[in-house]
């Protein structure tokens, strides 16, 4: 059990590929994606009923170290500014298969 940061990102699903490549470049040890999220925010309702997927959000959860969290939020800031969405950071402890 070790302390980690929980970074949560919710944004439009068209942005997913971009964000994933940012995370992959950063070599974060792992992340999880929940598709099919709907919601409301400054840019109005995202109903998820479109044919395009343009109107669906995606939820990304990353458990990572302090420094990684720092880097991720820095990288996310312009993306969220341009495309909307939020990024939350909270505290947690971590139990993993590779923790010894």
């Amino acid at each position, binding site marked *: 059990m070790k302390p980690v940061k929980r970074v949560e990102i919710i944004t*439009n699903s*068209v*942005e997913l590929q971009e964000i994933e490549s940012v995370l992959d470049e950063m070599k974060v040890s792992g992340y999880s994606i929940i598709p*099919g999220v709907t919601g409301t925010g400054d*840019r*109005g*309702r995202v*109903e*998820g*009923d*479109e*044919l*395009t*997927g*343009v*109107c669906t959000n995606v939820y990304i959860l990353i458990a990572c170290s302090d420094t990684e969290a720092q880097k991720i939020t820095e990288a996310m800031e*312009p993306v969220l500014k*341009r*495309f*909307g969405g939020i990024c939350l950071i909270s505290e947690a402890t971590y139990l993993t298969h590779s923790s010894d």
Partner: protein
Amino acid sequence: MLDLFLGNFFSAPVLFFVLGMLAVAVRSDLEIPAPMPKLLSLYLLFSIGFHGGVKLEQGDMNLQIVLTLLAAVLLAFIVPVYCFFILRLKLSLANAAAVAAAYGSISAVTFVTADAFLASTGKSYGGHMVAAMALMESPAIIVGVLIVRLNASKGGGGKVKWGELLREACFNSSVYILLGSLLIGLITGEAGYKDLKPFSDGIFKGVLCFFLLDMGLVSARRISGLLEQGWVPWLFGILAPPINGMIGIGVAWLLGLSHGDALMLAVLAGSASYIAVPAALRLAIPEANPGLYLPMALAITFPFNIIVGIPLYDVVISKVLST
């Protein structure tokens, strides 16, 4: 003539579309659960593409076909430009460019509905019109993004990834499945068609009805969002289709196209994209409001074309081509 409009309105596909719209009005909980609409739309594109390929294999390539395809691409580049200048009078740069791009592109489901309409009047169209549709889908995206970049003040927003954009314009799923199925229809020809007929043809109209039921739901849900946007979207959304449709008919007349081909060109010119273009613009012009360009194409222009536009173009073509 009224007959034609009523005959269209009281056809099963249009009635199912209206049924979908009414469901939203009475707040029914009816819905076609995701991701079925996406699959149904893939099916319709496959079916129309495959059938087009088979028809193309049976006919032969000629100059008129080549000219039609060229004219189609030209239309797809010119329409968004002239629309932009009109829209810019009332909308922001990004919004004007995005709406122009949507209207420069096409709506495959409108095309498919026109196919069903044409079949019910006993006429037909050439397989190359499916190719024309595929070619007309993406140029407007590029035009829209170019317009924004050329007019934007320096330093605003991120840079455009042109490579990505071009790739997406050429290989987005609807263009891809349409052209792919067309090619496969072309290769397998009559024999392949016979094998697939119960799937690609038999259940086609039924699937179209189901899909239009969903389109009715989706487009009606979008109307409320438009009410806050004033009269500009409504005016443009209702006037653009007939005007662009007439341009399409003019081109058809110049090229001496058949009645069926002319109708399809009018429908392509007069329809607006609510799938491929919004998907591309959400990334390429994020400053534009998807709550504007998407419902304009989906909740105003699409119903207009389905209910009024298609028979209207048909009547005009009957008049024009008989002269």
